[in-house]
Structure formats: C-alpha cells, structure tokens
C-alpha cells in the first residue's frame, strides 16, 4: 500500500472528524428512534412485501397459467427480473473485493451498504426461478442429493444448474464476507450499548475484542476472500449469460454475452448503489462519509461500464450483419425495428446515450443529476434484459408461432413485490447495523480526512512527508497522519 497521496486526491472524510466522532456519527442511526421518513418508507415497503406474498400465493394457487407466458414466449418478466436483480447484486462484491485488491480507499465509505444491497438483491433474484417452478415445495429437487428416484441426479451439463451453484455460492460467500467485516463494527455498537441491547449485540459480534492477532487474521481473511470473490463475481453473471448463450436461439447464442452481461451488471449495480446511498447519506446524515468524491468515483465507473455496454450493443449488430447468417440478421433487425422497438429505444437511450453526460465534471458531481441518472439506468438495464428475452422469443423460426407478450397483473405485482422485499430488508439493515464500515473508515482517516489532505487541511505546515526520509512500507499509511499528531514523529523512520 502506497503511503504517497497524489495531490489530485480529494478528502474522503469531511468535517475534521476524530475517531470518536466517527463512531458517534455512524452508530447514531442504530441508537436513536427512527425518523418519520424512515417509518413511512418502511410501512410502504412492508405493504409491497405483502403484495409480493399475495401474488406469489396467487401464482401457486392458480398455477403459472395466471401469468401471460405462452408457448412462444415462455420466459417473460420472471427471467427478466431475475437477471435484473442478479445484475444489481454485482456492485457490492465488486466494490468490496475488486476495489480492495486495487486499494481504492473510497470503497470504505460505501462497501458496507453496497454489500448489504448485494445480499438483498440476490435474495430477490432467487425468488423468480423458485416461483417459476410453480411447485415451490419441490425446489429442493434442483440440488443433487441421494434420493428415492433412482437416485436420479440433476443434469450437471445444464447452464440452469450451473446457475443454481453460482447464485448459491455467490450468496454464501457475499454473506460471509459481509459479516466478517461487520463483526468489529457490531462490537463497537455492543460496547456503547446497555442492558438487553448489549446482550444481543454481544452475541452477534461474536465476542470481538480488537486484539492485534485478530486484526491481523481479519485483514488476511478479507484479502483472501476478496481474491476469491473477484473471479466469483465475474463468474456469476457469466454463468447467468450462459442460460442464453449456450442455447440455439438466434440472438442468444453469442459469445459476447458473458463480458457484456458482466459489464451491464456492474453498470446497473452501481446505479442502484447510488440510488440507495444518495438517500441514505441524507436521511442518516452521512454526508461527511459519503462525499461528492465517492459519488464522482462511482459515476466514473458508470460512465466506463455504460460505454462498454454500448460498444457491446453495436458489436452485436455488426456481427449479426457480418456473419451473413440470415436468422441472426433477422433476430437483430427484429430487435431494433420489430414489435418491441420501444424497449430497444428505451435501452439505448437509458444505457448508452444518457450516461455520456457524465463526461462533464459538473454533472458527475451534481447530486440531482446523479440521482436522476441512477433511476434512469436501472430502468434502462431492465429494458436490456427484456429486449434480450422477450424480443428474441417473440419471433422464432416458425412464423405461425409468432406472438406478442404483455405481463399479467400477477407478474407485475410479483416484480413490485420484490422491490418491497428489497427495501424492507435494506431499511431494517440501516437500523440495526452500522451502514458505513466504522473500522475501515478510521483506518483511512489520516490519509483521507479533510484535516490532513485537500484545501481545508489544517496540517500543511507540518506536512513534511516528502522530506526524503525512508519510511517502512508497513507504516506508510500512518506517516501522513503522524506529522500532525506528534511533532517530529515523522522525522525518523518508524522501525
């Protein structure tokens, strides 16, 4: 880890915070009564969750016939929503794992909430394949276990089964990673609490005491889990794209799908993180920890992945034409100009054209535009999945089977219901656990706090870490801070 701070870096923690103030600020939402806005949002979310339960019960009672799928278009909103939610669930692990490996300090402000979002989004995603089975209670059949049917095993060659393994592994690893990071912060909450609260947080914080050896193993664990989660996060959406790419449907069996899906997943995931964080920083008063610098960094990722997705769309069209294969050409012509042309326009507008406004720093750092775009992108990415699934199926090989599909109220209610599930879980999370990783924020305070770097730094007179002394790599992170707190402590190497 480099101790050098580039002058271009802006502070990631503002308000001249001390360690204790950080604890106070981030623990406060778990210790005070919820605000009226939280209560109202929570009630709405729980009502939507009720709608989810009702529409799922309806589906199970009446049967999948209550959906408007037909023999031509046999995958509709269910798989669209599944892929959309899984995609959203990619940002959390990207932020916590890949950005950890790249030593991006800004991830510390948003990783906790983004990982929570990942876990809840994957839970929402998992609902759709389960409901689509029709007989929910037989869902256990998807796992290979010794059974009385032979034993008859599942088909390990099927991408749908790969999905089962990919999603459940991703969920488990994300949960373990998230919780391992949460344990020290839950201990912080425990040590401030009294009575029953202290007991509860005592159990969930696993008895963490901050011992040096524990921290060493904790850092080692985080790093290795990040190393494991990085290929995992890329594999999950790759495997989701295999659901389509390994089929023999023109418009689906393209080799570009895995990278295109992964880029799209990061794109939509970051948009959802921004939607949530812009609200959370306001409602929970975390403006000092989730700064414009964080928002701008995420907007840059959105700009990059949005452009990758745009290139992928155009590449698809080009390859369809260049292949000289008439069915492929028709599939893409139909995608752009067919009966679902409106969803293609929506997708192009929301995903490719509109994110380009982020080239402007003014817009990239504007809260209004960021919020507006984050919603816009999520709509666009939903359209992308719908375009790929419904448009392609609506015009298959037999013109006599061509069809058009509009979702029934049950399908619409299930989708809106998963939004209720997602927000209910997220709102509960903001009340019971620190939304920002307290320990990790503290560890970057002296290299990213605004009293140490940036235009408001109070320590410029002492900032002499460019004075030619060699500082051992292990303590480099402290060297910037040491110039402030102890005069002369930085004048000699800390060895």
């Amino acid at each position: 880890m480099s101790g050098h701070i580039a002058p271009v870096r802006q502070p990631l923690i503002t308000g001249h915070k001390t360690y204790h103030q950080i604890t106070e600020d981030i623990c406060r939402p778990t210790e005070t009564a919820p605000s009226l806005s939280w209560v109202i949002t929570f009630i709405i979310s729980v009502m939507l969750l009720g709608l989810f339960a009702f529409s799922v019960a309806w589906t199970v009672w009446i049967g999948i016939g209550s959906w408007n799928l037909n023999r031509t278009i046999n995958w509709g909103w269910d798989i669209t929503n599944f892929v959309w939610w899984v995609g959203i669930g990619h940002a959390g692990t990207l932020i916590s794992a890949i950005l950890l490996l790249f030593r991006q300090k800004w991830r510390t402000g948003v990783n906790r909430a983004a990982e929570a979002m990942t876990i809840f989004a994957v839970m929402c995603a998992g609902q759709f394949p389960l409901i689509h089975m029709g007989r929910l209670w037989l869902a256990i059949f998807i796992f290979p276990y010794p059974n009385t049917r032979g034993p008859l095993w599942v088909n390990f060659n099927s991408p749908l089964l790969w999905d089962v393994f990919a999603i459940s592994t991703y969920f488990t690893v994300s949960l373990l990673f998230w919780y391992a990071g949460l344990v020290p912060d839950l201990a912080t909450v425990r040590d401030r609490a009294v009575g029953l609260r202290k007991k509860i947080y005592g159990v969930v914080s696993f008895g963490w005491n901050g011992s040096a050896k524990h921290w060493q193993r904790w850092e080692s664990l985080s790093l290795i889990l990040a190393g494991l989660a990085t290929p995992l996060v890329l594999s999950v959406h790759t495997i989701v794209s295999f659901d389509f790419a390994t089929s023999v449907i023109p418009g689906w069996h393209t080799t570009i799908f895995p990278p295109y899906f992964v880029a799209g997943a990061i794109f939509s995931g970051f948009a959802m993180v921004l939607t949530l964080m812009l609200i959370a920083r306001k409602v929970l008063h975390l403006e000092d920890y989730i700064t414009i610098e964080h928002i701008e960094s995420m907007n840059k990722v959105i700009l990059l992945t949005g452009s990758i997705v745009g290139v992928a769309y155009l590449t698809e069209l080009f390859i369809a034409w260049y292949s000289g294969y008439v069915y492929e050409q028709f599939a893409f012509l139909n995608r752009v100009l067919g009966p679902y042309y409106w969803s293609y326009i929506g997708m192009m507008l929301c995903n490719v054209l509109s994110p380009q406004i982020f080239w402007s720093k003014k817009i990239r750092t504007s809260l209004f535009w960021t919020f507006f775009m984050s919603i816009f992108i999520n709509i666009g990415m939903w359209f992308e999945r719908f375009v790929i699934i419904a448009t392609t199926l609506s015009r298959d090989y037999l013109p006599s089977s061509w069809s058009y599909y509009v979702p029934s109220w049950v399908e619409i209610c299930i989708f809106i219901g998963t939004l209720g599930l997602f927000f209910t879980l997220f709102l509960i999370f903001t009340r019971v656990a620190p939304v920002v990783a307290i320990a990790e924020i503290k560890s970057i305070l002296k290299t990213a706090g605004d009293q140490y770097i940036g235009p408001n730094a109070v320590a410029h007179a002492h900032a002499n870490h460019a004075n030619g002394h060699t500082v051992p790599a292990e303590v480099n992170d402290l060297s910037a801070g040491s110039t402030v707190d102890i005069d002369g402590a930085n004048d000699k190497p800390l060895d």
Partner: protein
Amino acid sequence: MATIRIDQGGDAGASLRTEPANTTVTGGRDILFGLYDDEVKLLEAVKAANADHLDIDDVYTPFPVHGLDPLLGLEESRLHVAGFIFGSIGCLFGFGFMTWVFTRDWPIIFGGKPYWSVPAFIPITFELTVLFAAVGMVTVFYIINGLGPGAEPRRLHDRITDDKFCIAFDVTDSDDTSIDQLRQYFERTGVETVHRKTVAA
C-alpha cells in the same frame, strides 16, 4: 504529559466510560493496561516496550494498525493455507462427484455428448472450489480466534472498539517494583489513562 490515573474501583475516568476495575474472578489474570489516543503513540510505545524488554501481553486497537505486527513479533497469518486446502478439497470433490455420477452411477447421453464431458463440469467445479475455500477459511478464522456467538474473550475497556489504543501487561505474578516500572513506562510513552482489571484466565 498525560495524567496518570490508576483506576481503582469506582474511580472511573472523567472522559472515559470504564467498567468497574478489580472485578474478582477466581483463578483470573491480573491485567495492567494503558490506553493511548493515537496509533502513532501506540507504535512508539510498543517500540519503547521492546527496547525495555517489557513483555507485552496483547495490544487491542479499534482498527488494524499497520506496522504493529512486526513490532509485536506476530508471524504472518497462515489462513491462506487453510483456504488453499479447503479450495482443493472443493475442487476435487466437485469434479470427482460429477465424474462418478455421469460415468459410473447413472450415465446419460445429453445431446450426443460424451458421458465424461469435462468442459461442462468446469463451472460447477469452479463454484465449489470457491465455496469450500471461503466457508472453510471463515470457519477456521472464527475457531482459531475463539470467536463465535456467545464467545466471551477478554474485553478490557469499552472504548477500545471506539477510539482508544490499548497495551496490556499481565501482572498476575508481578511484584510492586515491576508494576511501578510499567507505570513509569506508560507515563513516559504518553499514555492517556492506566487501568487495572482482573479477567478470566
């Protein structure tokens, strides 16, 4: 220089919420610990302790302090070895199981492909490798640290998970002279408060 206060019973620090000191625990350890308000002071203090050949029992911090491990003589964690072993088991188990099912237990031809269709086994093999490595390593992490629901390891002070950096000495078998020596050491290294507490062994 910071004020030195040896915490005895009800004399809790004005700025610090402290637990009552000297809780009697049969067969417990007597711990003398100092709280510092900055990690740089902590690192300097640990170096001073090493120079004075003082035997630090443990150091507790609110966040991982880089540069502390070599000073305390902590070896690099071998968790990655556990991760590798569990990952290898997952990899072999996944691939071996699919091989057994499709070549021995119930061979089925799917789409005219060979029974043993290795490329199709790769996604699940990979996922199981990651799953086993992660679950195994996290389990090992909690076990070797003695952490888990209901675990009650030594907790010296409530502010250690907040903003105080703690150096602890085991003074169960120490005489007054060596305790005095430790007090002087704390004073010299800019400690904020010094406390004494009996904890379970």
